[in-house]
């Protein structure tokens, strides 16, 4: 059996003695979309930050295709093939859209031209191509979110992590984002999606984990997306 693309085992993260994530274990298989849902403060973002090397876990292991990446610096994690679309988008407002994309090239592992990947990303998000010479700060929130995802994708990652990409977006733009994620999966990129929009996430993802108080509570499948009772229970557990 091959190793899963991303595996988190017994992850413990604490901030100043207060546990944010407790004994969390899950796997994301090659080419899968896995959702991580749960209320605010459940430890979802902390999990992503631990994967990226932004916070050091107190215990546990994080493996990328079988190799432990715990203790790597954020830039080295990015260069190992994991790209994060951070919460709040974090685009560089004073740089142009094109420069933001060029920053995304920083994590590319091969020397070959990034043009093909950039074109593919433009196809996914035409609006990014349209406004590529503008300052990123002049884009709307939805356009900035698309840019943030585009910037992560041009790095040609094996794994794409997204931290609440639909936060603060209009329903139409949320559709664009979720459609794009489905197409990202078609390109063979593994996706770990942290979201508050539980129903859409469960419907899209191959598997969704519900976490609360830093612990894994429940695993949901797309079939559960329309099972209101189960969804509500997941949030109130």
């Amino acid at each position, binding site marked *: 059996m091959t190793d899963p693309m991303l595996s988190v085992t017994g992850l413990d993260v604490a901030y100043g003695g207060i546990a944010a994530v407790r004994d969390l274990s899950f796997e994301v298989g090659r080419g899968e979309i896995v959702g991580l849902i749960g209320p605010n403060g459940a430890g979802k973002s902390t999990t992503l930050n631990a994967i990226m090397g*932004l916070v050091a876990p107190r215990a546990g292991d994080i493996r990328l295709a079988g190799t432990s990446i715990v203790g790597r610096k*954020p*830039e080295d994690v990015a260069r190992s093939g994991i790209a994060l679309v951070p919460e709040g988008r974090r685009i560089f407002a004073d740089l142009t859209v094109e420069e933001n994309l060029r*920053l995304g090239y*920083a994590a590319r592992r091969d020397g070959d031209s990034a043009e093909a990947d950039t074109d593919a990303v433009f196809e996914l998000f035409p609006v990014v191509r349209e406004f590529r010479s503008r300052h990123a700060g002049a884009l709307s929130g939805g356009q900035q979110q698309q840019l943030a995802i585009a910037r992560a994708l041009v*790095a040609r990652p094996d794994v794409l992590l997204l931290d609440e990409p639909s936060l603060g977006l209009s329903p139409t733009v949320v559709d664009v984002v979720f459609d794009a994620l489905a197409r990202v999966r078609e390109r063979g990129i593994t996706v770990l999606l942290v979201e508050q929009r539980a129903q859409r996430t469960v419907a899209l993802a191959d598997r969704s984990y519900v976490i609360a108080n830093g612990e894994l509570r429940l695993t949901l499948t797309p079939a559960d997306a329309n099972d209101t009772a189960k969804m509500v229970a997941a949030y109130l557990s």
Partner: protein
Amino acid sequence: MTLGLLSISWQVIVDSIGLGAVYALMAVGIGLVFGVLRLVNFAYGQLVMAGAYALAFASEWDLPLVVGIAFCFAVVIGLSLIMDVVVFRPLRAQSPAVMLVATFAVAFLLQSIALLAFGPLGKAASSLGSLNRPVTVGDVDIRKITIVAIIVAGICLLLLVLLLERTTMGLHMRAAAMDFRTARLLGVRADRVIGSAVLISALLAATVSVILTVQNPLVTPDFALRDTIVVLAGVVVGGMNRLLTATMGGFAIGFVSGILGGALPSDQSQYLPSFLFGLVILVLLVRPNGLFARGPGPVERV
């Protein structure tokens, strides 16, 4: 030829531009490191001082001019890298106040070392004297070094703009100055960006060393200390958060300082710092975000 009221001669204006150019270089050196580390390097002047001593020793050993300048660059770069590894990197996660105080300590440590090792009287860097002679343009006597300073500063700033705007490393440095954490998440190597900023900053300090040593060949332990304080004020006045405004601030304070020096009667020249820093306070009261900063300051405007 004079410009009327204040009897400021063209000579003073050219000299002031020269001083502004040197201070602009120092401002860039300080601003670059501030950009990526959020560290105000008060010890920047001591890098210049170390370079000046290198030139003085090169002159004492009768080294050829080019070798002396190369030695100066080697000393400044070496000292910068040591400072980075021993002080800046271990303190990178600390608050800006901690880092500022640490650079105060480094500044006075280096000054004390110079005092103990080389004595309070100073060393003369005599071999650079030829650059200090004047050339006459029209009826204005301009010291060669002033022209050199203006040209060198222009070239350095142009190269830096090209580096920052046209290269990948420049883009990474700009991104790191805006949001270091996100830059790292995208794969921008923190060590490389910081190392580049420190290195470029050191190259600028060495350049400033050479220019200042030509202008003032007597190298003492407090060499460039006053200049550093004035430049830091200029950087704050211009606007610390952007390299361009910091550089403009450095130039402006050098230029104004030169003009004030030329306008004050020579028996009152000891009041120059009072006038200069009085102006600094005035500017900061009116534009607390910096003279050249964009947008309104924190003060509400009606």
